[in-house]
């Protein structure tokens, strides 16, 4: 490739294009990679969120629309109706005499049905032969936006939201502080019988909650904590095996060089924790915090048990169950409540994303 002497290294009009090819190729390749990966992720996401779309759509319907959408349109619509003889009558698209007309179904029948013209309800009846169930109704867009207001008022949503947030956030603070301390002990200190103690820690996760339900409730009852939030918050200030296990694993990923550097500088164990370990751990700390919040947000049975008879103390997870009464379940209201309840944790997750971006973590080598 000929390079004109003195020509600039970047492409110019009229100059040599000799140097442009690698730039273009790399640029195009870059865009292709961005595009492919993003597209792939979008496809996976779409499949993944399909049930969420069902949830969203259901929250804007009422019971009749949910039933209708089992075989009909999935969006919240109502069949168009007109008043004929004092009652509301649905309108269908009827193929009759070679064209498709919109007619109101007055008397459905197995082999033939009677329609009238919706513009002229009192006028002549049209008899149509065929199965009316094969006809498509005319639909009107009708989302039930009132569901959210109904839920907001129906279960005293603001109060329940406050209760949930209080329980979740205080528990989160407690669990973060205590679990970081305990995990630090397991990860960095030469304790006698450490392996055995760690297995005991793991062992406490194994027994399901239901196994310990009765003695735990009896214990809290004996010390007078039933009817309060204390059983739901205080135990988290004493570390929880899931989080300790996770944090210990994470801390053991961190090389000791920085610890030792700080210790040589005269830092005590507490200083090492706060200025060396913790700054390297923001992602996992945020993960643990979120984990606790979501857990507390949706924990249902123990909050119910300990706030029995105190509806003013109940969290959202108990409130939402009111729409789940076995003889009149209201799935649209359940979904509306769930959506409203999810806003805070999801928003929290979104705004803490910066802790998961590369570069936020000081891994020492690139400080």
């Amino acid at each position, binding site marked *: 490739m000929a390079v004109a002497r003195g020509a600039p290294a970047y492409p110019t009009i009229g100059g040599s294009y000799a140097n442009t090819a690698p730039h273009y190729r790399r640029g195009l390749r870059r865009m292709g*990679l*961005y595009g492919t990966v*993003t597209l792939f*992720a979008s496809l996976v*996401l779409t499949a*993944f*969120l399909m*049930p*969420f779309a*069902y*949830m969203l759509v*259901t929250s804007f319907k009422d019971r009749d629309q949910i039933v209708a959408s*089992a*075989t009909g349109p*999935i969006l919240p619509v109502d069949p168009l109706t007109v008043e004929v003889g004092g009652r509301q009558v649905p309108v269908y698209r009827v193929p009759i005499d070679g064209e498709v007309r919109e007619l109101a179904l007055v008397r459905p029948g197995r082999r033939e049905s009677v329609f009238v013209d919706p513009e002229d309800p009192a006028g002549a009846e049209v008899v149509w032969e065929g199965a009316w169930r094969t006809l498509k109704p005319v639909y009107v867009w009708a989302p039930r936006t009132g569901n959210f207001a109904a839920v907001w008022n129906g279960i005293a949503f603001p109060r329940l939201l406050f209760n949930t947030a209080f329980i979740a956030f205080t528990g989160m603070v407690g669990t973060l502080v205590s679990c970081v301390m*305990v995990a630090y002990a397991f*990860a*960095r*200190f030469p*304790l006698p019988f*450490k392996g055995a103690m760690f*297995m005991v820690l*793991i062992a*406490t996760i*194994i*027994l*399901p909650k*239901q*196994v*310990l339900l009765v*003695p735990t409730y009896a214990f809290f009852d004996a010390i007078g904590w039933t009817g309060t939030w204390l059983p739901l918050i205080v135990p988290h*200030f*004493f570390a929880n095996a899931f989080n*300790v*296990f996770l944090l210990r*694993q*994470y*801390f*053991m*990923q*961190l090389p000791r060089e920085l610890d030792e550097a700080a210790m040589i500088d005269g830092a005590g*164990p507490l200083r090492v*924790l706060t200025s060396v370990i913790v700054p390297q751990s923001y*992602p996992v700390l945020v993960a643990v915090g*979120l*984990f606790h919040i*979501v857990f507390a*947000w*949706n924990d*249902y049975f123990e909050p119910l048990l300990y706030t029995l008879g105190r509806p003013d103390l109940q969290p959202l997870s108990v409130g939402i169950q009111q729409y789940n009464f076995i003889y009149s379940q209201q799935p649209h209201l*359940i*979904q509306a409540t*769930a959506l409203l309840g999810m806003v805070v944790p*999801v928003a929290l*997750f*979104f705004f803490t*994303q910066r802790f*998961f971006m590369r570069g936020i973590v000081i*891994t020492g*080598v690139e400080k």
Partner: protein
Amino acid sequence: MSARTALGRGKPSPLLREQRVWGWVFLSPWVIGFLAFTILPILASLVFSFTDFRLTEPESVSFVGLDNYRKLFVDPLVKVSLGVTLRFALLALPIGIVLPVALAALLDSKWLVGKPFFRTLFYMPYVVPVVSAIFIWQGVLNAQSGWLNRLLRLVGVPGPNWLDDVNWIYPALVIIGLWGIGNAFLITLASMQAVPTAFYEAARVDGASAWARFRHITLPMISPVIFYNLVLAVIGLMRYFEVPFILSNGTGRPGDSTMFFNIHFYKTSFVFFDMGYGSALAWLLFVITMVFTGLLFYSARYWVFYAAGEVR
């Protein structure tokens, strides 16, 4: 570690002792909590297993020795439920370990545009409360009117009866479980952030491909968290309860295929009120899980890499 080796064997050095004291200080919240909140209920449930404690007749409880444990060997549902858990594990465990890693890798890729949005949307289903999720999945997986089968029908594939067919109920449960992958991928992501970028740069300079970098740097470095996911998945399998219980109303249908061990325990204790035998079931669950967990921990030395090294 250096304190002891440097000064040889014999009395622990002052430095080591000081380290231990600090260790206890930091460990104390758990120790206190364990003694205050955890140990008593655990011991109580152990005691229950040696009695005929009935929930609705707490006053007439009496000691029955090992009767409940003997019953474990003749109870047909014990074999059934352990078999159910094992068969489900064969499908669910590999998927539950591999997919969070794959998803975290995808959502960490530098070629992905709009990472905060993608990550939030993949995380979001994890936040859906169980009562709402059950309705969603019963709706989506219904053989006639569910969206999944309607979509399959659109492309000409006849969808199976996900919830009532013994061959498809486990895939259905796995699909439902995958929806809650948010937490697992999040902590894997967090773990990936801790891998020093210098390693990747060095590897790139050496000419390693993206896959080689992933296999030889990322995977070993995040193996502690993969280990965490694996242990929790095994424990979670034995504790698996809410979703199958609500879907099958505790009957174990279709057939016996959703009679998971924890459901058997729950029905024994809270439907049949037989807390004595129920506690024995719970401790059997404990022993089995501890064995598997112990094996996992033993195997860890072969494949889990701790950058910090073991602390002696």
